[in-house]
């Protein structure tokens, strides 16, 4: 990574790296070389880099189908990511995962599920095991606002609080579940609801501000480490693209383009042209190498079809 001299620049670099990877995915997508549904994180990168800066490989995160940002921010290798998207044998999961099931256990990325809300309880279980073993680690579950409507989310909050488990519940609230707005779905306030379970909950509204969000995460993670209690952060963020796929769908009428334009006007990755031009060449070179690796890797064969079933 380029040597930089401020937290802002470091986090900017990491966030830009994620955005440029996803913009490369958009560029490649019409070629049909990536035959996996992609749920892009563009607009939400600040959350991933702000959090992961404070986590070591031993601190596990459990993510979801919109997982490119967290995979990369947590240290998941980029060439293997592209190979995975290409369905190549050199992908970290040998092409069996694709975009929706990213994992990099050596970096503490413990798997992503496409069934909304279904890895939240995994973080709680890993934390339970950690408590029994007497470890001092943190477990993070990352989910969207839609996942908080699942029963498993409530069950997980209850269990984590009841058993005093070191879990950070991190909700990326982009206000949308596929195309449905919060108003159509929720009769509760996320933070008020978590507090009912005795879980300290914080709402952060400027999800584009990776520096301030990173500071918040630092404080929250420290508190979880010292109290061994779960906490919740709701971070408001903005999904720039369609739910799944490389495009935009503002013409569909389920949300306002003006809202996204207003968000972009505050997003450093959109407005800090100087840093973009400073870092983009180095990042594009890394991306070029990663794509080259994927392009030139072999496909899995029939010999791989029935491995790791049982």
């Amino acid at each position, binding site marked *: 990574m380029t040597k930089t001299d401020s937290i802002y620049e470091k986090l900017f670099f990491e966030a830009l790296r994620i955005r440029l990877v996803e913009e490369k995915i958009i560029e490649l997508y019409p070629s049909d070389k990536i035959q996996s549904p992609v749920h892009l994180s563009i607009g939400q990168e600040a959350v991933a880099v702000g959090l992961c800066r404070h986590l070591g490989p031993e601190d*596990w995160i*459990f993510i979801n189908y919109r997982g490119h940002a967290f995979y990369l921010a947590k240290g998941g290798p980029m060439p293997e990511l592209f190979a995975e998207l290409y369905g190549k044998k050199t*992908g*970290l*999961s*040998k*092409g*069996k*995962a694709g975009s929706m*099931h990213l*994992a990099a*256990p050596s970096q503490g990325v*413990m*798997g992503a*599920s496409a*069934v909304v809300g*279904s*890895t*939240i*309880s*995994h*973080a*709680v*279980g*890993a*934390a*339970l*095991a*950690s408590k*029994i*073993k007497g470890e001092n680690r943190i*477990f993070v579950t990352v989910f969207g606002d839609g996942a908080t409507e699942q*029963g*498993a989310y*409530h*069950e*997980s909050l*209850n*269990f984590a609080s*009841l058993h005093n488990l070191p879990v950070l519940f991190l909700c990326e609230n982009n206000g949308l579940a596929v195309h449905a707005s919060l108003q159509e779905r929720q009769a509760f306030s996320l933070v008020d609801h978590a507090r009912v379970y005795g879980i300290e909950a914080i709402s952060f509204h400027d999800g584009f501000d990776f520096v301030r969000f990173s500071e918040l995460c630092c404080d929250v993670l420290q508190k979880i480490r010292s109290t061994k209690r779960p906490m919740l952060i709701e971070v408001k963020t903005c999904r720039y693209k369609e739910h799944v796929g490389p495009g935009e769908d503002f013409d569909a009428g389920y949300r306002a383009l003006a809202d996204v334009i207003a968000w972009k006007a505050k997003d450093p990755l959109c407005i800090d042209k100087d840093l973009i031009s400073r870092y983009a060449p180095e990042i594009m070179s890394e991306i070029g190498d990663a794509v080259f690796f994927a392009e030139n890797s072999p496909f899995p064969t029939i010999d791989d079809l029935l*491995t*790791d*079933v*049982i």
Partner: protein
Amino acid sequence: MNANTKMKYREALAIAMAEAMDNPHTILIGQGVTDFKGIWGTTTGLAQKFTQRVIETPLSEDGVAGICIGAALNGMYPINTHIRADFGLLIFNQLINLAAKYRYMFGGLFEVPMMFRMVIGRSWGQGAQHSQSFQSLLSHIPGLVVLMPANPQSILQSYRYARKHHKGPVVMFEHRLMYELEFEDKPGAELLNPFGSRIDRVGSDLTIVATSVMVLEATRAADYLSEFGINVEIIDLHSISHPDHDLILNSVKKTGRLLVADTSWLPYGVAAEICRIIAERDPTVLKQPVRSLGMQQAPCPTAKALEDFYYPDVRNIVEAAVLLVRGSGHAIPLPPKQAMTDFYKHFKGPF
């Protein structure tokens, strides 16, 4: 077990659980594992000995199954109990979408060794939601091992093997009717494949492939039939997800006749799968069309008068067997209809 020792099904489960807890990485988690009934005496006393690792749960089956996956990822061996298999339906998302796929979906990056104990609640009056047998549903899913132990030896052997050697999720369907039954051990059981099917009785005229408590009913039927010169071979299927194809085919090749006796519904079930094996491998081994016995194609009624018709019993097995071996002109009297819950008289409610 030593020769001629006797053991109850429940006692074997209690031994299996105690053995499991001796490993500091086992957690035993589920509704009732810490209470005074202790899953009908199979977990009693363990909570006092292993205070951190025997965990009572909120009524959150889905969440707890996910917690088990997370704990397995972090090096524990979770044993998750369901005092009624019906409640286990609430974990199907975690079991099917996650646990069964965690190894394959991530290309071998993860293993989630764990055990789910699901008790088929059938006894009297358990009704539509306290009595169901879901072995076929789960055996349909790649990535799961589904076993139905039919005796204490099978329990001791396969639970130990699952814990020590299997790196994925195993679902154990235990049958409530057998809990208080005493079994004599059989020589050579320790040599069997812990996750495989086994010949429970050698015969020459008819093969009965049976699951769980139906092995006992098939044995009663076989004893009865032997007095009329009919020699029944019984296969205890044991592994529902991975039945031993060669064992089944070779048996039917020898006897030429097949009866399948299962604890669940017939369509798309165990009987259908056994027929698929025979039909695909060599249907010419059959001298007669196959017969199958299972629950009637309806939810389970609560009234005992209806329940007695709902489940097949020894009379139904004898009748099907005689028809297969002797045809409709036989002169063999059928035994009286007698529900298993009446025969295994020790059972009293409410559980």
